[in-house]
């Protein structure tokens, strides 16, 4: 029996407005010191969204780097400890070992992770430390004024490679995520980008996966986020994103580089060849 007594006709009722998106509370209501258009802001926001969606924020202990994101703890409402430059994976190891219940997160730039901190990230990965490492790769040292980074592209001008990076004296950019991916302790390693809205969505999915890997007890999880530095690169914000989606992505291909979570952990340790996506290992070019 139909008890609906509403008058039938065209404009019978109006639905309430629906909230589509608002920023999560764990991303604090503060303007950041990052330059206009800087990818750090996007990546902080994605982290905040993922931690909120997975309800991890209350038990997160995070490690801040030295670099532009040195003040990350002013923008994300989490328990944070400052690490000396490059040491975040070791600091995170100490936290993880004494606090098995915590969710442990590191946030590092390209100098922090791939220059001064190379030993620390390699060994945290080798030990399969149950941490989630966020690696923001913008191919430059922003905080100290725009010097060359290990991931700076060949020919790229920086304040310490003013004539452009020259392989003969300055070496080649390092694809450190591919290097780490071949360690059996790495459960998940992926590379995403902040280039446009669609890529940002995919990056968020990688960050989410890297957090889930930790919750599921999988092992070391790393997400490399190709990001921009408009001021350091001498470009407008939009130009800098085009640069990320173009030349940077050519050198640092996007995708899941390794995902061992479906693989038997012990068997992976015995194998010599890692499970690595062929797409992520292009032939090195000069």
């Amino acid at each position, binding site marked *: 029996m139909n008890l609906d007594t*509403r008058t*039938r*006709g*065209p*404009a*019978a*009722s*109006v*639905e*309430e*407005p*629906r*909230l*589509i*998106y*608002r*920023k*999560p*509370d764990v*991303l604090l*209501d*503060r*303007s*950041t010191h*990052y*330059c*206009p*258009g*800087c*990818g*750090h*802001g*996007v990546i902080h*926001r994605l982290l905040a*969204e993922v931690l*909120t*969606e997975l309800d991890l924020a209350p038990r997160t202990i995070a490690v801040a780097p030295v670099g532009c994101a040195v003040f990350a703890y002013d923008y994300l409402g989490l328990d944070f400890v400052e690490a000396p430059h490059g040491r975040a994976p070791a600091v995170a190891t100490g936290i993880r070992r004494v606090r098995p219940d915590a969710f442990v997160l590191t946030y590092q730039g390209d100098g922090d992770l791939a220059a001064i901190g190379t030993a620390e990230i390699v060994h945290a990965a080798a030990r399969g430390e149950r941490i989630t490492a966020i690696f923001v790769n913008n191919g430059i040292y922003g905080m100290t004024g725009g010097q060359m980074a290990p991931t700076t592209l060949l020919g790229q001008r920086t304040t310490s490679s003013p004539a452009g990076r020259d392989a003969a004296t300055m070496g080649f950019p390092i694809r450190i995520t591919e290097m780490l991916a071949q360690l059996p302790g790495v459960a998940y390693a992926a590379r995403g980008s902040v280039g*446009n*809205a669609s890529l*940002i*969505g*995919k990056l*968020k*999915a990688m960050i989410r996966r890297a957090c889930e890997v930790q919750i599921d007890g999988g092992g070391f999880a790393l997400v490399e986020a190709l990001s921009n530095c*408009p001021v350091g690169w001498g470009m*407008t*914000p*939009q130009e800098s*994103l085009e640069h990320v989606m173009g030349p940077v992505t050519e050198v640092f291909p996007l995708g899941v580089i390794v995902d061992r979570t479906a693989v038997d952990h012990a068997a992976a340790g015995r194998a010599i060849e890692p499970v690595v996506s062929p797409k992520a290992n292009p032939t090195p070019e000069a």
Partner: protein
Amino acid sequence: MALNPVATRTIRPPIPWAPLVIADGRCKGCELCVAACPRAVLALDRTMVNALGYHPVRLLDPAGCTSCAICARVCPDAVFTVWAGPRRKRDR
């Protein structure tokens, strides 16, 4: 990417109605949203300067906004809160 509303406290839709609420005090005028908006309804308001010293973004044409939230996705300063407008519910 699912854009789940991640608020833990209730907030009310803006009055007067607009699909975007912009925290223009945090906007740095980077124009990534202006470039990304598929309906080209965003632009910097060059008649004003916020406390940070930038021209903040403004929604030029609320009726043209489809609440796709691409602006919110690309914004490095999380200035956007996005609402989908009231709509007529059609009876069968």
